[in-house]
């Protein structure tokens, strides 16, 4: 939840907030997918939780996350 809404008259700051939010969302998604895999979630469960297809989430993260097997 935002405490404040970006002031649309301050375009530079508002656009910087958008960029920073995108970056935060990307980082949070990767970190959380890694945490989910660490906890034993499978790709179907992660895809459902993110509201995307299994293929999409697998393509994006299969090589990126670490699998700790055994």
């Amino acid at each position, binding site marked *: 939840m935002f405490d404040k809404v970006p002031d649309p008259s301050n375009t530079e700051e508002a656009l910087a907030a958008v*960029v920073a939010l995108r*970056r935060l969302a990307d980082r949070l998604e990767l970190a959380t997918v890694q945490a989910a895999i660490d906890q034993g979630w499978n790709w179907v469960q992660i895809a459902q939780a993110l509201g995307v297809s299994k293929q999409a989430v697998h393509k994006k993260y299969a090589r990126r996350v670490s699998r700790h097997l055994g």
Partner: protein
Amino acid sequence: MFSGLRGARADLATMNRLFPEAERLAHRDGIDEPGAEHLLIAALDLLDESGRRALQEFGIDGNQVHEAMIAQHQEALHGIGIGADDNAIDALVPPPQRPRGPYRSTPAAQALFRRATELARRDRSPLLSGHVVLAATEVNHGTLARIFDHLAIDPHHLKDIVEQALAASRPGS
């Protein structure tokens, strides 16, 4: 003279070093595709001294550019009342994988590289880190501009310093 096929080959060789490093830096940050800021830091880390020397005039190195990038994103989030725990996220971000397949980067990174190669051609020179820094000083909005602002670097002043560093690196100067 540095032009034609030889120049194109050298630019390609530089690209083959620069883009994987930019991708590694982006992945280290938990970002999928490198932005212009990652390309700038990769150029400072990997290429010649010209860019580093210019930033040293301001007491700045590549690590401080990276720290400024993080700080300005945090400031932008604070501006809308969000305080994210970057350390907690960093602890979960998996280590970078070895780049595979075609290079991927944001349009901002591609534009920065294109402009830097134009500046190298202008100088009839291989692509130097100074050209990447010089191209970065021409970006008036967005993350690069905010990084310089955060570091209290006047891009016009930096531009002058880089031009001098590049001139000094030319043969016969």
